[in-house]
């Protein structure tokens, strides 16, 4: 196991109280339109800040290492893995989580389409899938290329291949991908 690193943790001569204070920070950011201020351990990821401090548990921890996508949220308009960024690095940022996208009695069209087409099973990857699905349509509209984009100079169309590739950072072990595809295509067409 790991050796004791106590000596390295306290800088020589430093007041332990000061040192302890340096390990924590106060951070202010907007979550789902609401300004939040929290005092946290610097080690707190954005994911754990949301789940443990703000008790917004819709964002899921599947691997905590950027290998599954369950923790996907939107920061400043872009989807990110909230497990691989520190809360303290989000000062001043705008964060949107699944709770901000829609509520059980007021679902967003993507959430409703997932329900209609059974685009999930156990539900654990679902908030991340929905955050990604909405972002994917935005990314295609913004002309951001993907691994399956053909001509890099042409306008990028919404195709099943484009959606599949771009949704690949969100693993669904229940294997509901094909149903998610139906839901995403429906939303992309603006159909009810």
């Amino acid at each position: 196991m790991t050796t004791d690193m106590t000596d390295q943790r306290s800088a020589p001569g430093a007041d332990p109280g000061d040192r302890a204070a340096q390990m924590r920070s106060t951070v202010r950011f907007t979550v789902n339109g609401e300004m939040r201020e929290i005092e946290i351990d610097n080690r707190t990821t954005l994911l754990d800040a949301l789940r443990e401090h703000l008790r917004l548990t819709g964002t899921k921890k599947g691997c905590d290492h950027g290998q599954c996508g369950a923790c996907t949220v939107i920061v400043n308009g872009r989807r990110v893995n909230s497990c691989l960024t520190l809360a303290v690095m989000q000062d001043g940022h705008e964060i949107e989580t699944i709770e901000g996208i829609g509520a059980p009695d007021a679902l967003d069209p993507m959430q409703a389409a997932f329900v209609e087409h059974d685009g999930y099973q156990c539900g654990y990857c679902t908030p991340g899938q929905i955050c990604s699905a909405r972002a994917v349509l935005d990314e295609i509209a913004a002309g951001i290329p993907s691994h399956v984009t053909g001509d890099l100079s042409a306008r990028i169309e919404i195709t099943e291949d484009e959606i599949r590739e771009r949704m690949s950072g969100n693993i669904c072990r229940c294997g509901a991908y094909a149903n998610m595809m139906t839901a995403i295509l429906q939303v992309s067409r603006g159909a009810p």
Partner: protein
Amino acid sequence: MREFSFERAGDAGQAATLAAGDTGAKFIAGGTNLLDLMKLEIETPSRLIDVTGTGLDRIEQTDAGGLRIGAMVRNTDLAADDRIRRDYGVLTRALVAGASGQLRNMATSGGNLLQRTRCPYFYDTNMACNKRSPGAGCAALDSGGFTRPLGVIGISDHCIATHPSDMAVAMRLLDAQVETLDAAGNSRSIPLEEFYLLPGDTPERETVLEPGEIITAVTLPAPIGGHQAYHKVRDRASYAFALVSVALVRQADGSGRVALGGVAPQPWRRAAADAELPNGAGAVMARLLDGARPTAQNAFKITLAERTLAAMLAEAEGN
């Protein structure tokens, strides 16, 4: 993850100054690899310096007709940049072959170059690893070790890890240079060819960067045109590290350049191999992978590299 203090740097000079003389200090930008490793205590900084606010997030024209890519430019933005797409297509292709949309939104040009290996024994702190703990040994090379994803060339008896980046393979192909700054205000420009160190008997040393030295930009020379392609081969269709990847620029006269990912501790390219391109994939790989020392589990990478290039050349010729 061990405790650390946290500071923000307003520019690269300040970042380098903050880090000067503190071996416990680390820069953090995208965080996609550093935090991953900190959670496992493979990286144990006592101090993090957030460099995302250093303003190094622009892509600018250089006097030489190339592009200067700020170290903080996110992978998504680099891949989507009109100039990169038009003139350095292989770089866009390599970028979008890597990771996932979410990770590319976070990862930066500088951080991507400094990714550490994905060797499973490096990642498991119960296992002996010379890269993690110099002198501890290499569990992958022990009898029964799992070596299928690991390196076949440029490796040593002390370490057979690969460098995981796709972006770096394309940058190596394009003769990119890494610009850095240190606390004394000295900047230098390092050819990517010289940026990475081979493991030898010091696999813990991965680049020529000095402590506290910060990457400020990557510069690309003037466009070289040609047919540009990147083929990443993996076990699933997306969101996986390469078994082998091949970056190719091929000119109309048949000349060009080839670089490989997934086979070596650094993006792998040799001038002598480039020169063989008109003679086909077999001739290129005979030079490029000359001296390879694969294991029984990963010897297929030699064949795979050649067949992948052959398929790409066939495609470039319109079959």
